[in-house]
């Protein structure tokens, strides 16, 4: 029981931390609300889709930016997608970087775009780690019978 409550406390603290630090926003809570008996792993499913998508997009983006003549429209499309998906799961920081990224795409500023791409990569990896940790906690809770 002690382990259980500790895990739960950890989970609460961590999700509060994610909220506080702006990694996640209300949308994530909404997703969590959608999760019920009929779809017990809804959030995890969505997030894993998000991860898959994101990695693909990030790769595409990186490739697009490596071209000699950068097709900013192409990059922008990727970023837009990334923005949409991140908004859907409520990854606020990633979304904000995307917004910034799109501005530079519009301005066709390669330097800043590269910087943003890096930033995006960074934010994404941080988010991924955090969420994975959160899900791990959840799994542990579930395993513990919560």
């Amino acid at each position, binding site marked *: 029981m002690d382990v259980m409550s500790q895990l739960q406390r950890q989970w609460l603290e961590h999700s509060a931390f994610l909220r506080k630090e702006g990694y996640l926003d209300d*949308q994530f809570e*909404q*997703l969590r609300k*959608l*999760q*019920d008996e*009929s*779809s017990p792993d*809804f959030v995890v*499913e*969505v997030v894993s*889709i*998000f991860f*898959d*998508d994101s990695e693909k997009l990030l790769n595409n983006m990186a490739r697009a930016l490596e071209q000699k003549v950068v097709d900013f429209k192409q990059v922008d*499309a990727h970023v*837009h*997608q990334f*923005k*949409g*998906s*991140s*908004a*859907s*799961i*409520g990854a606020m920081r990633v979304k904000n970087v995307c917004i910034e990224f799109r501005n530079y795409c519009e301005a066709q500023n390669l330097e800043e775009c590269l910087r943003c791409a890096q930033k995006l990569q960074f934010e994404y990896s941080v988010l991924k780690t955090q969420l994975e940790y959160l899900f791990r906690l959840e799994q542990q809770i579930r395993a513990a019978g919560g």
Partner: protein
Amino acid sequence: MIGAGFVKIETEFPAFSPFFLWRVFHKALVLLSLLRSCGLSQAFKGLREDSHIYRCALVRMSMSCELSGLTGRLPACFKLKTATEPSHGPNSARHWRRKFLFLLLILVALGSICFLSRFHGRTSRVKNKTPNSCKGKAQILLQEFNISGNHLHALASLFSTSDQNEMLSETLAFFEKEYCVSFCTFVKASWLLLVVAVSCKMSGLLLKLWRNQRKKVINQPPVAQQQQQQKQQQQVHSPPKAGKWRKKLLLVFVLLGIAMSIWLFWYLNEEIVLRREETLANMCDERARMLQDQFNVSKNHVQALAILVSTFHHRKHPSAIDQKTFGEYTERTAFERPLTSGVAYALKVLHSEREQFENLHGWVIKKMETEDQTLVQDCIPENLDPAPVQDEYAPVIFSQETVSHIVSIDMMSGKEDRENILRARATGKGVLTSPFKLLKSNHLGVILTFAVYDTDLPSDATPEQRVEATLGYMGASYDVPSLVEKLLHQLASKQMILVNVYDSTNASSPINMYGTEITDTGLLHISNLDFGDPLRKHEMHCRFKQKPPLPWTAINASAGLLVITLLVEHIFYAAISRIEKVEDDYCKMEELKVRAEAADVAKSQFLATVSHEIRTPMNGVLGMLQMLMDTDLDANQLDFAQTAHNSGKDLISLINEVLDRAKIESGRLELEAVPFDIRAGLDNVLSLLSGKSKEKGIELAVYVSNQVPEVIIGDPGRFRQIITNLVGNSIKFTNDKGHIFVSVHLADEVLGAPNNMDEVLRQGLSFVQDNYDKPCNSLSGIPVVERWKSWEHFKKLSSRNSMEEPEMIRLLVTVEDTGVGIPLEAQSRIFTPFMQADSSTSRTYGGTGIGLSICKCLVDLMGGEIGFVSEPGIGSTFSFTGPFRKGEKTSLDATWQQYGPAVLEFQGLRALVIDNRAIRAEVTRYYLQRLGITADIAFSLKSACSYPSSACNTRVSTNLAMVLIEKDAWDKETALLFFHSVKDHMRKITKEVPINRPKIFLLATDISPTECSELKSAAFVDNVLIKPFRLSALVACFQEALGSGMKRKVNRKKASDLGNLLREKRILVVDDIAVNRKVAEGCLAKCGAIVTCVESGKAALAMLNPPHNFDACFMDLQMPEMDGFEATRQIRCVECKVNEKIASGEASIEMFGNVAHWHTPILAMTADVIEASIEECMKCGMDDYVAKPFELGELYSTLARFFENG
């Protein structure tokens, strides 16, 4: 002159100062009164009553702070004011001060001129005086000239030119001196003038300086309110200090002025006295010198006589002189001694020689009678006693004829004479006696005695030697009074002074030799007289005959100065006290301003808070009402609840409108373009205002022409606002027994031929007046103004280019009332903000006068025109035009759906309207027509009696479902008659008891509940309809009466949660992003929907190709390959084709899943909810949008619109 100047000031001064004061006071008063009455924002308006621009700015400001709390504009306005305000005040003050200074200068100039002229008078008087002495001097000079001898004449004439020059230069010098004196006075006066002017200027300058400081203080923008308050306090405290200081300065000035005038008096008086003394001294000295000179001349002659006697009597033997010779000679030379009354020669006779002497002359030496002075006049030598024995005698041997009586008298026997003789022979010089009464003449006189010596004595001879050598004595008597008299006669201005001559040998008791008794006239000058006798001292005392006159010059001058000072002081005092007063007022105003500013800020905050606070509970009220309406209510209750709900919504929108007004003012208002039902909108407006109109007993009606489309596209809020304002305005100015009639027509109708017009318009245009023998065809029968005049001047009414935009329609709305009307002189400013017909209007009718101006703004904004016609006592008609677009009826089914079943229910029914007024009947018919009821009109109950029978068409008769009788046309007996006729008719046709007998409704504007229930219980009347009508009320009432009205379940079963709404609905989600798809799916699935996801526009197109079974589609906008817009367009295109096919019969409905009309609701999913993209969504055929990511509440409200009915 000073008096005149004063009067001038008195008259001029009030002429300018009240003007200045008026401004300040007016401002203060306006401020105060406005503060009290109209609220703070308007009070600011009062601060700047001058210009319209300012007012506009302020109005705007007041609006903005009043309504939206846009405080950003507020400080700007205040800054503007603070910048302009002080610059204005001092301006007029400066102007005023300049005037004041100018006047002061004039006054001082006048005063100084007066002063100078007086001085001039004085100096000229002095001038008059001084020539006198000058003349005297000249005389003396001339005399001297004459005396010096004729042989010098040639020489004199040689010099005369130079002498004349001298004289001239003397006189010139004199005049110069005079000039100098007057110049000095002038300088003094001008100095005074300068001092006054400088003090004037200085005070003005100081005031200005002080004001500038103040201005600086004011001009500094308020850094913080607290600081400002501190400054304010400073300002409040500083003026009294300054005032005190100014008053002190004034006091100093006054004291200085008084001191100056005293000093001036003293100075001038002193000068006068000095001048007088000088004059006296001059005259006295001059007289003394003349006396002395003449005396000396005589004395010399006497001495010459003595020498003559010595020469011709003693040296000659025998003597060449006897009494006769001597007498003759002396008589003949008497002119040389004008001052002597006589001369005599007495011989020195020793006692030893007495007898011999007596024998020789043949008479006895007689003693001078000294004991009895009274008898002097009859002094006869013969009567005198012989002289007593003495050592020596001095008997007179020769004498002038005039004094021949003293011959033989011993001079030594007289005490005075003896002393005199003794002194004379001892000194060898002429010796004078003290004055005594002369023998015989009885005048006071002196005797001059010279000793005659036998040998020429050396000048340093001792007295003994002189006594030894003495032979005789020459004596001359001087008659002093006549002497002086003669002398004074020669001099001018003898009237002016009084001369006394004293022998002052004995200083303690001088003997008066000449002159009357002393009368003390103040000034006295004493000149010493030297008659050549060192032992005797004589003095001449001169006095002015008159006492010195009062020194009027000095008095006038100083009084003038004093008056000027006091006058200046008075003026300054008045000015200062006025300035103080003005400053006080200014301070008060400043204080009020600060308070008003603070209050204004507080008010904006209050407004913001309150409007928020009102909205919150109102939402509660509305929510509760909405819930109440969802419960099981009967028709009436539902109507009440709906009315309450609508009123609440109106209240909310009113609060928003209040905020909107600021937007209108600032030109930031944008008009919507949404479809709306104009008739329903007008119904709402009227029902909102019906409470007020009922209170006043005013009939309120609306009529919309048939030609006006049911749905138009425009800004319903603004349209309603204009109507509300106009009708509200009309209600305000209309008293009982009147009506207000709103009619809406197409502009084309008005322009068209009268035949095409509907009844209402024709009557409004008075084209049908001849057809009816009624005094007036207005709604209430009260005469109204000619409506068409109100749109007479509209330009756009006729110049509408309908070819360009066939969709466009121009509505002409008129609001007609039977109010008090607008006075002719006020009609020009009726659309100006805050301008009512006159100031008494707001008192009588209330209101701010902003309503009409807002109407004008809104109409202008819409691109329409507004106008009015008004006649005092008859009423006014306002009309406006506005362009709208025709709307499709379908785009508003939601609104119509409310009445849909009801309308269908009443479709095809017939009604009979009994009303004695055509227009009113038309209005009723208009309502019935809206419900699909065909109405016939009868103008009286009697004519209506024949209606059922005359209606040959049986269909008409059977369908006659209701009879609406206007209360005015109601009368019990006829109604009964009519009722029976209807019944009979029914029975005749159907041959059975009519179940469906026509229902009878009474139409009334105002009816008491008792009356209502009475009528109902009499069973004549099924129900009473209260005007103004509302369609919903009408429907409810008809339903109730006709029995067909089952409790409506429409809208009642509104799915209260999304789950019910979406349950089992098939929904297609189109998004290229997997995460989004998943989320949307999850979200919708949660609500029970069956969700299908596709990831591209193309896939969606395939899925939505009819027939399909999707109920709705959520479409992402940005997708690769085919975006949401394109996909939607194509889907709509496909749907359209299918629909056409079905419609044309090319394809059967069965082919497309038994759906006659394909239109899948497509909702855009978009992250950026901006106007442009939403518009684009609508353009390409989407139905609505939802913001991404989904929010359950929003999703519900959006979807509800689509699934509610389905």
